[in-house]
């Protein structure tokens, strides 16, 4: 089976995110960049599915040359082959999905695994748009995936509980937090990753219109919350909740 997994290079979730003085973007100097945590879960799931069903795990990233680092991390975990789709400048979820349709046409994977959202943009759209453009089923916010007889049974995190859906393959799955716990790359894995194939393609060569349907035209830091107060004991807390906050 062939698994296509996408990884995005994003700011570390532990980093303090600050705006540049001119508000043109966030400060990236000195900010650690990582593989989007949901994508790391996706790589892990693909590796487990390959271990079970055999096949190949292809990992892809869209971005500048520095995204190679995240592809190499996925190769170090055990992915077989990497693809960097080079693109500079803004891209929206629709553009990401359109690029991926061209890659899917070429690679014909059985399953595309993406993270449910990128922790910088938080849009949670690309996987779903891709599935629709391909006419495929989708299992979003996956909590577990079982592949059997040309179908994927996906248990999904839904409001109020867990929902099970059945997808004809090929299909798109997006990962949620508890799908798995990603493995650490071993030292031999890191060494092997340097030799695994990593192809670079220019996004412009794919023949898709990447005009922005959604443009970020402004960034601001939300107003800081008014400073709170420490209370010395339960009695004071209850008194303040009642008379000051009128919350009880």
């Amino acid at each position, binding site marked *: 089976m062939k698994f296509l997994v996408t990884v995005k290079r994003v*700011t570390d979730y532990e980093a303090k*995110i600050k705006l540049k003085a001119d508000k043109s973007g*966030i400060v990236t100097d000195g900010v650690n960049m990582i593989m989007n945590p949901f994508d790391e879960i996706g790589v892990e799931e693909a590796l487990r599915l390959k271990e079970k069903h055999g096949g190949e795990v292809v990992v892809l990233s869209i971005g500048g040359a520095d995204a190679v680092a995240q592809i190499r991390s996925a190769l170090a975990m055990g992915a077989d082959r990497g693809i960097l789709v080079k693109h500079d400048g803004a891209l*929206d*979820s*629709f553009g990401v999905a359109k690029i991926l349709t061209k890659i899917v046409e070429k690679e014909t994977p059985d399953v595309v695994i993406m993270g449910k*959202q990128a*922790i910088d943009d*938080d*849009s*949670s*759209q690309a996987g*779903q*748009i891709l*599935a*629709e*453009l391909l006419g495929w*089923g*989708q*299992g*979003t*916010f996956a909590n577990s995936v079982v592949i059997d007889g040309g179908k994927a*049974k996906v248990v*999904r*995190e*839904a*409001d*109020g*509980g*867990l*929902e099970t*859906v*059945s997808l*004809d393959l090929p*299909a798109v799955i997006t990962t949620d*937090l*508890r799908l798995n716990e990603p493995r650490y790359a071993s030292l031999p894995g890191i060494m092997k990753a340097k030799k695994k194939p990593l192809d670079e393609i220019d996004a412009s060569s794919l023949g898709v219109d990447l*005009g*922005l*349907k*959604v*443009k*970020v*035209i402004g*960034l*601001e*830091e*939300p107003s800081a919350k008014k400073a*709170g*107060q*420490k*209370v010395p*004991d*339960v009695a004071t807390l*209850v008194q303040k*909740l*009642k008379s000051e*906050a009128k*919350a*009880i």
Partner: protein
Amino acid sequence: MASHLIVVEHTGGKLVKATLAAVTAASQVGGDIHALVLGQGVDAVAAEVAPFVKQVHVGEHAGVKERAAQPFAKVIADVAKSLGVSHVWAAATGAGKDILPRVAARLDAGMASDISAVLSENTFKRPMWAGNITGTVEVTTATKVISVRPTEFAQPAPGAAGAIAAVAVDPGASKMSWVSFDAVVSDRPALSDARVVVSGGRGLKGPEGFKTIIEPLADVLGAAIGASRAVADAGWVPNDWQVGQTGKVVAPELYIAVGISGAIQHVAGMKGSKCIVAINKEPEAPIFQIADYGLVADLFKAVPELIEALKAAKA
């Protein structure tokens, strides 16, 4: 002139209130508001939503009896096209996030996700980087698809009930199907719209902590129960209870965080709460930076004390 289609979410034969936040947002743009209710036996839901919109369209079909993204997206897009609306809206609930991007794909439309404010018919504010940054986005396409963060928009005032009419729908062939739903059953109010939320974290030391500390506190306050990611990961509570950037976003009147350190990702899901109380034995815990009232104390002593004090205050 803009015109709108609201995708109505319902569960157990009842309207999901979060949908009405989308109505409020649409009304801030202005123009006629239509609502679409899909399912079987949904007349009661249509009647619930009618006082808030100009017209309710009810699409009954066996193929939309259970919610599945592919057939739903087709039907929603078909209705949007036949009505010729400029905007398609839904609440950014789990279902909204699952289905709406496919609608955008079918309509070749830009989608603004999880918006917190409407600035104009094509510009919106939305949280980014776990809410550390507020982005202003412009949707450049003629048709715009928007999901709305329910906690950021007040419920609309009801008016005269709009007309309710059936609309013929065709879900088409699908590559996916709904199999089953395993509901988390609870007598408590729903986390997403409870007036009070009591949330527990790792400080509770184990699942029993939820039984002995969190539940009695939630009982005396009539509260919903939330949790940090750590305890959901550890399996102490259902995943559905997780509050945070990638879990539920809540904004109750009162949020009490018990034994929660206050990681950015948790704060992202509750900082909109009107009044935040934190109980934690670590004075430097980040949660105290956003709490209105912080009590540095051993929760195993402080919470039972608090429960007694609240009972006395009620009496």
